[in-house]
């Protein structure tokens, strides 16, 4: 085990209902480190992410385990794992305003005026000041993606899973968004696992793990 490991997978192995196996996969993440998982379609990336996030279908058998900040993740439901998610779609809740989306992520310990201040500060960070009352559907793709990151961060996660988070953005925005995400993760020393098809997504100097298609 590395000296300052925050998250590690220890021989994680998944067996699909049709008998194919994914893994075993072992890895370790230091605070603020972004590790990239790449591989062909069908190599089981989404199942791996589901296993780490805690949403794995019961039809898939899992052996080995993940540990986050020294705690085993086995049997811990998703809402208690403190693992944030970013998908290719921003998935802002459509019935809530931008501010409500962010307030929804804040811990209950932040009360009253402090909640509104935290929301305002997050919007300022995302260069979206004054957009509190806007409906998510009125935001551009890049704006929505920035709100989605802020929402994930306000919940004070111990790590993030990034599931092709840049693939829906047009190429002009993509580099800006990468810089934005990586800057915020490193500033908060939050480690992240990034799944992508695009080698341009790999942060400078970041490690890459190449996955292979599962064995029959």
């Amino acid at each position, binding site marked *: 085990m590395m000296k300052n490991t925050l998250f590690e997978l220890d021989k994680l192995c998944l067996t699909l209902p049709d008998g194919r196996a994914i893994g075993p996969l072992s890895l370790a993440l230091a605070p603020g480190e972004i590790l990239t998982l790449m591989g062909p379609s069908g190599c089981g990336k989404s199942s791996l992410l589901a296993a780490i*996030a*805690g*949403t794995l279908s*019961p039809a898939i058998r899992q052996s080995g385990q993940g540990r986050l900040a020294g705690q085993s993740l086995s049997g811990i*439901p*998703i*809402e*208690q*794992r*403190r*693992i*944030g*998610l970013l*998908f290719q*779609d921003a*998935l802002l*809740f*459509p*019935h*809530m305003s931008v501010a*409500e989306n962010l*307030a*929804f*992520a*804040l*811990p*209950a*310990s*932040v*009360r009253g005026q402090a*909640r509104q201040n935290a929301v305002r500060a997050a919007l300022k960070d995302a260069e979206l000041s004054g957009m509190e009352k806007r409906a998510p559907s009125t935001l551009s793709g890049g704006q929505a993606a920035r709100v989605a990151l802020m*929402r*994930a961060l306000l*919940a004070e*996660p111990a790590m993030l899973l990034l599931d092709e988070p840049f693939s829906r953005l047009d190429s002009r925005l993509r580099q800006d968004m990468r810089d934005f995400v990586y800057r915020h993760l490193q500033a908060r020393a939050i480690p992240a696992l990034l799944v992508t098809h695009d080698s341009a997504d790999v942060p400078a100097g970041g490690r890459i793990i190449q996955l292979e298609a599962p064995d029959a």
Partner: protein
Amino acid sequence: MPVLTLILVGLLFALPLLAALLAALWPALSGAALSALITDPQFASALCATLISALLGSAAALGGALLIARSLYHSRLWLRLSALFSPMLALPHAAFAIGLVFLIAPGGMLVRLFAAIAGFPVDAPDWVTVNDPLGLALALALCLKEMPFLLWNIALFLARRELAHQTQVAASLGYAPKHIWRWIILPQLLPRLAWPLCAVLAYSLTVIDMAIIAGPGTPPTLAVLLWQWLQEGDPARLAPAMAGSWLLALLSGALLMLFALLWRAWQASHRWPDGQRGQRTTGFGGRLLAISLLAIYGAVILLTLLWSFAGLWLFPEPWPQSLTLAAWQDGGDTLAAHLFSTLALALLSGSAALLLALLWLEYGTEHPAVGSLLLAPLILPQVLLVAGLYRLALPWQLEGSVFSVAWAQLFWVFPYMVIVLAPAYRRFDARYLMLARALGHTRLKACWRVKWPMLARPIAAAAAVGVAVSIAQYLPTLYLGAGRITTLTTEAVALSSGGNRRVMAAYALLTTLLPLIAFMLARTLPDDEKHSV
């Protein structure tokens, strides 16, 4: 094709619908009609029983459905349960009410089981558990029968992929299932339940067959009272009956406005998210309710089966002294004749409605005004529309033929088919049709060879629903049939007022089995949902 679709739907459905409503409006438009209605000695208590049974039944159905969904939506049990909603939905109201009476009547199975264990009572008690003057038994029957309909609608919404993603994000932010339900699901679900709730409330206010079986006797509910007046054939009774039907329609409108106001108030009280994440709970209440609901449906079907084969069955025996085929044999010829007319009607109205529904969904949806007419039969009192249709049919001497009855049933079979088929139709990946047409086929040919075969399973499911709706029709069959057309359902309801219980059970059982068979046949088709987006 778009023009042909509009003509067919217009001639068979939309225009007669409007004409029938006009024909029913005309006699009602007089002060005398209204005062005759209101001064009738039975009016006040009939209205009271109607309001109690409809409001209590609808509210309990909604509350129960939401409780079950909230407790179970994130569990594996939900998926298994969801598969049962549409067969439960297909159980005809009359058959369900008959089975429920076998269960909860003073001499019914619940009391028999209690007596078998406790040793008393020795005679069937004279409590009023069904046909009570307030309509509480009817409320229970309505609640149990409408809950699967609301659950089916909830399941349809919960199956959306974007909702699965949203709940996953909310969970990753630390929220327990119950709080995800409160903050993410319910605010998006309730507006979508508005129309189904409309249908439930309007149905409960105006139901006839269930109210005859489980509702109060004299005075009955308002809808049954009006129906009795219409049946008297006395022209002096016609006007107040029509005025009463419109009153029922206005009543459902007013109640829906009330619901809309409550919803607004709930929305206005909408709080800023306080960040409370909540704890996982066992969802015991919802689980218990779901299991009870399934158990009651099972008991209703099994009791109907048992009664149709029961010989002598004295109180308080929990099992008949002997089993016999008498009910099936004695009623043999008439049973077969009624079975045949029921099937013929289901086939006629079902296939016509299927044709209309496919054409409508493919070519008609750009006419939202006509589309909103589709909902009219589901939210207007049935007695209103049926009486109007009858007045239309009378001058042409169309009443009393199989075709006019099938046509009258169409007003309910067609809309339900469209509602059931529409979600799958919308989910279909439009690129398949584009591809087929780019290969040089006309739109109709592309539908015939590509789209409809790929949608075979949902189309078959919609056809099964059509069969179920046709079989369940009581009022249109009886009224447009002019006494010459009898089906299993009209016969079962007729027998419920003091007829032979065993024969009634046999009829109810057949009306239960036919839709189930249709559903099972539909399930044998391959499921191509994976091609949908």
